């Protein structure tokens, strides 16, 4: 039974986190967006969604670039 529970935990954690840096980056993007929406003007709050989108898209590209560079280092 404990192996099933461990499997459930591993799977649930694995559902959300595959690459730690990507997960931390995503949470940081969400926190920045939330902070901007809460502390800025109404106009900033209304447009905070686009800020989040820009941050996450930049994060995806940066993370994949890093993964590619790491892979190239291992190959060469």
């Amino acid at each position: 039974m404990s192996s099933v529970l461990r499997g459930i935990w591993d799977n649930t954690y694995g559902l959300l986190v595959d690459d730690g840096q990507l997960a931390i980056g995503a949470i940081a993007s969400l926190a920045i967006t939330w902070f901007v929406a809460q502390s800025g003007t109404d106009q900033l709050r209304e447009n905070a969604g686009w800020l989040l989108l820009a941050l996450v898209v930049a994060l995806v590209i940066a993370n994949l670039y890093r993964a590619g560079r790491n892979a190239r280092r291992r190959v060469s």
Partner: protein
Amino acid sequence: MDLVNLAIAATPAFIASAVEFVEATTIVLAVGITRGWRAPLVGSALAALTLAVIVATLGVALVTVVPEHLLLGLVGTLLLLFGLRWLRKAVLRFAGIVALHDEDEIYRREVADLRAQGLKKTEFDWVGTIVAYKAVLLEGIEVAFIVIAFGAKGVAAMNAAIVGAIAAGVIVTALAAALRQPLTAVPENWMKFGVGAMLSAFGVFWFGEGIGAEWPGDAASIPIILAAFLAASWLAARMLRGLLPEGARVEARNV
């Protein structure tokens, strides 16, 4: 909700759940073909029961108890984490940096493992039951997560997500039962790529709504957000091919 709108609302959950059902079916098939069908069917039924309890308790509690803004923020966060994980892996697989998910190879390995464990004809096959239970439960948790995530917006969305997931389960199971072999023809990586982008787009949209952001045209913004993720993934895939034109293939063989 009429049938057409229900079908549209259920599609994201259908596609996302189908990928998970394909993976669970591979293991259940391996158990059934090597050790007989009674044990994997019992294991699958028990896992389905466990999942129904999880969805009923968590899903209903989330939709009815948690305040809407908090719920959208929470679900948006989970969807974004979940979606980005799939999107990243799919792009790395397209670039050859991570090996493609091979249902045939997984099936062969599982069959060999199960045959090695042997089977006494007189006893109930607990090994087969547990292997099937574990596979269906673990993949099913992902399905439950998908249903809760897509259905978090309200009762109608939850119903559509449940319909989508059930339809995916029925179709995948029926196909596997008819073919009696793993569903290797399913373009899993393309599906995971599409679903990853879709979940990420929903995540951004709902988190934005949760913190009080205004989206022009409300849900009509989702295709624009989705397009941004698809464009970023395309750019990243091209970039990776530039970085590792031949090396990516070498790296894939080493995984």
